[in-house]
C-alpha cells in the first residue's frame, strides 16, 4: 500500500484537493497572515471564545482560530499548554466553561463550527459523524477485542449495527466483506496486518497508537485530529506514516495534529499553530513560527536567543533522547 501514497504524491489528484500540488500550497500559505487567529481563505473549522477552566486554572482560552481546509495544520505547545483540552472541547468530549446554557449566558459565548455546521451543543458522536474524527493522546484500544474488531467498529453506516436488521445476516454480509477489505488494506499500511487476530490489549504502546489512527481512518473522515500520533512509534515507521498522512491530505482530508517532535512538525505541516498557557500565541509556517520570539519564550522561558528550528537545539542526539523518553513514557503508562 505504501506505493499508493507515493503515487498520489507524484501525481497529485487536484480534483480531490486543489492543494495537493506543493506549489499551490505554498501559494496559499503565503497568502495567510502569520498572526494568532488570522483568517483563512477556506476554513473548515472556526472556533470562537472557547474557554475552559479547571477550578482556578484556565486550561484553554482561545478567542479565535480558523483551520484551513485540505492542508496539514500542526498544533504545538509546551506540556500543559491545553492542546488536548482544546481537542476535547471541540470534539464534544468536554464542555467549555464559556458555553451558553439555560442559566449561564456569557457575554462572549463559545461558538465553533465545522464545515459550516455549528457544533456548540453537539455530542461527541455527532461531531464524529459530521466528519471530524479524533484520536486520543492516551490511546483507547478496545482491549478485549481483536485488532480486526477494533477496525470494523470504525466503519460508518453499517446495516448490521442497526438492531432491527442485525440478526438478519444476509442484510449485512456483503457490506461486512467490503469493510473487511478496507480494514485489511489499512492494517497493511499501518503494519498491523499480522496482528489482526490478536487482542488489542496485547499490542505495544506504539502499536496501539497505530491501531487508533487506522481505526479513525476507517470512518473516512473529512478532517482528522491526531493527538501525538507518533509518540512511541519507531522512526522508520514514522517516516512511512508521515508519507501516509501527506497522502491523506492529497486525497482531500484535512489534518490537524498535536506533536512535540519539531522535526516532524517541520517536515509535514503546512501551517503551525502554537498554544501556550491555553492561548494561541503564534501562527504561521513552521520556519517562521519556530523563529518567533513568543514561541521560544513559551517553550524555553524568556531571554533565549536561539530559534527552535535551530538544529543545534534538535540534534540527532536530542532526537534520540526524546525518542527514548517517549518510549519510556509509553512503558510507564502501561
Amino acid at each position: 500500500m505504501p506505493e499508493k501514497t507515493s503515487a498520489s504524491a507524484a501525481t497529485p489528484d487536484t480534483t480531490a484537493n486543489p492543494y495537493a500540488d506543493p506549489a499551490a500550497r505554498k501559494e496559499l500559505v503565503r497568502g495567510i497572515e502569520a498572526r494568532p487567529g488570522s483568517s483563512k481563505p477556506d476554513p473548515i473549522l472556526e472556533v470562537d471564545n472557547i474557554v475552559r477552566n479547571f477550578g482556578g486554572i484556565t486550561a484553554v482560552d482561545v478567542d479565535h482560530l480558523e483551520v484551513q481546509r485540505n492542508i496539514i495544520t500542526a498544533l504545538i505547545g509546551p506540556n500543559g499548554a491545553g492542546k488536548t483540552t482544546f481537542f476535547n472541547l471541540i470534539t464534544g468530549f468536554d464542555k467549555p466553561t464559556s458555553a451558553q446554557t439555560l442559566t449561564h449566558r456569557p457575554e462572549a459565548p463559545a461558538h465553533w463550527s465545522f464545515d459550516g455546521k455549528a457544533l456548540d451543543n453537539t455530542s461527541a458522536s455527532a461531531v464524529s459523524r459530521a466528519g471530524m474524527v479524533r484520536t486520543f493522546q492516551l490511546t483507547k484500544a478496545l482491549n478485549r477485542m481483536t485488532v480486526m474488531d477494533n477496525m470494523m467498529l470504525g466503519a460508518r453506516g453499517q446495516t448490521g449495527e442497526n438492531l432491527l436488521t442485525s440478526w438478519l445476516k444476509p442484510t449485512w454480509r456483503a457490506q461486512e466483506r467490503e469493510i473487511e477489505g478496507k480494514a485489511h488494506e489499512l492494517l497493511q499500511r499501518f503494519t498491523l496486518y499480522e496482528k489482526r487476530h490478536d487482542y488489542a490489549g496485547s499490542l505495544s504502546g506504539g502499536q496501539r497508537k497505530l491501531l487508533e489512527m487506522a481505526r479513525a481512518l476507517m470512518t473516512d473522515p473529512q478532517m482528522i485530529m491526531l493527538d501525538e500520533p507518533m509518540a512511541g512509534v519507531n522512526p522508520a515507521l514514522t517516516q512511512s506514516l508521515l508519507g501516509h498522512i501527506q497522502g491523506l491530505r492529497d486525497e482531500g482530508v484535512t489534518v490537524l495534529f498535536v506533536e512535540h517532535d519539531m522535526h516532524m512538525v517541520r517536515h509535514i505541516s503546512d501551517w503551525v499553530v502554537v498554544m501556550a498557557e491555553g492561548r494561541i500565541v503564534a501562527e504561521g509556517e513552521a520556519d517562521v513560527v519556530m523563529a518567533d520570539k513568543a514561541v521560544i519564550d513559551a517553550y524555553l522561558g524568556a531571554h533565549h536567543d536561539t530559534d527552535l528550528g535551530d538544529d543545534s537545539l534538535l540534534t540527532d542526539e536530542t532526537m534520540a533522547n526524546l525518542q527514548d523518553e517517549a518510549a519510556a513514557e509509553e512503558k510507564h503508562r502501561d
Partner: protein
Amino acid sequence: MSQDTTAYSADAVEPDTPAPGDERPENRIDRRKTVVLTVLGIAIVAVMWYVATSTDGPMARVFSGVLREAISPQTAAVAIAVVGLNIHFGFTGLLNIGQAGFMLLGAYGFAIALNEGAGLPLAVLVGLGASVAFALLLGVPTLKLRGDYLAIVTISAAEIVRYTGRLSQLTEYTGGSQGLPGSRYRGEFTDLSFFGDGRTTIGPWSYQNTGVDGWWARAVSWAVVLLVVIVVALLVRSPWGRLLRGIREDEDAIRSLGKNVYAVKMQALIIGGGLGALGGMLYVLPSSVQADQMGRQLTFFIWTALLLGGAATIFGPVLGAIIFFSVRILIRGVTNAYVPDSILNTQQTEQFSWVVVGVILMLLVIFRPQGILGNKRELQFNA
C-alpha cells in the same frame, strides 16, 4: 493462568496462513475446548442417569433429584433471565444489580393481565411492556453517567418493585404479601397443552403430561430458552453485538467513531430486561407470584449463574443456571444422605448447601474467573 498462556503462545507460533474464511487461530482452541466440555458433560449426565435409574440406594435418590432440578421450569426461567443479564453485563458492561426486579415486574404484568381477563398473548405483551417501561425509567437518567449509577439505581428500583408488590393497598391486584396463586392465572396456559392427560416417565423424570408442573411447562420453558439463545446468538454475533462489546471496552472510543452509544446502551438494557421479564413469567407459571421469591437473593443467583457459566458467551448463562441449581441439590442430597441428623438436620443441610455454593463461587472466581465457557485470554487484558 499458566496453562492457558502456554496454549496461546504455542498456537501463536504456528504459521498464520490466511485460510479461506480467514479463520482465527484461537478458534481451534475453542473448538477443542467445546469438544472436551461436551464429552465431559455427557459423561457426567450419563453416570448420574445410570445411578439414578439402575441402582438402589441413597445416591440414586440424590442423582434423580439433581437431574429433576436440572430440567425444572424454574431453572429454565432463571436461565432466560441470566441470558438477559449477559447482554447487560457480559456484552455491554452494564451493571444491572436488579435483574430479579425485571423478572418480578414481568411476572406481575403477566399474571395481573391474565387475572383481569386478558388473553395469553396480550398478557405476555403487558409483562414485556412493563419491563420496557422500567428499563427506560432506569436508563434515561443513568446511561449517560458512569456505570456505577445504573448499579445503584437498579438495585434500589428492584427493591421498590418488590415492596410495592407487597403493599396491602394493592392486595386486590398483586395479592399483597400473600402473592397471587398460580391457579388464578395458569388456566389458559395449561389449556393450550396438546400433551394430553396421563403421566410419562423418562428415566428419573416422571411427570404428568400437562398438569400444573408437568411436561408441558418443561417443554414450553425449554423451548423458549432455545429460542432466546438462538436470537441472542444472532444478535451478539452481528455488528450490533460488536458495538456492544466496543461499548463495554471503552465508550469514549466508540463515541469518537460516531456511534450513538446512549441509544445502543438503551437497546441493550431493554432487551436484557425484557428477557428478565420473560423469565419471570415462566418462573411463576408452575408456581405463584411471590414478591419475596424474586428479591435480592434471586438477583444474586442470576449473577452467580452468569459468572459460573461464563460472561459474554452464548451458552454460558444456560449452563451456569443448570449447574448452579443442580449442584445445590447435589450438595443437599449428599449431606442429607451421609451426614447423620444429629450433626446436620434437614433444615441445616439446606443452609449448608448454600454455604457450599458460596464457597464454590469463591473458588471459581479465584481459579477460573472466566467461568466454565469463558475465554481466559480475554481476562488478561483489563478493560
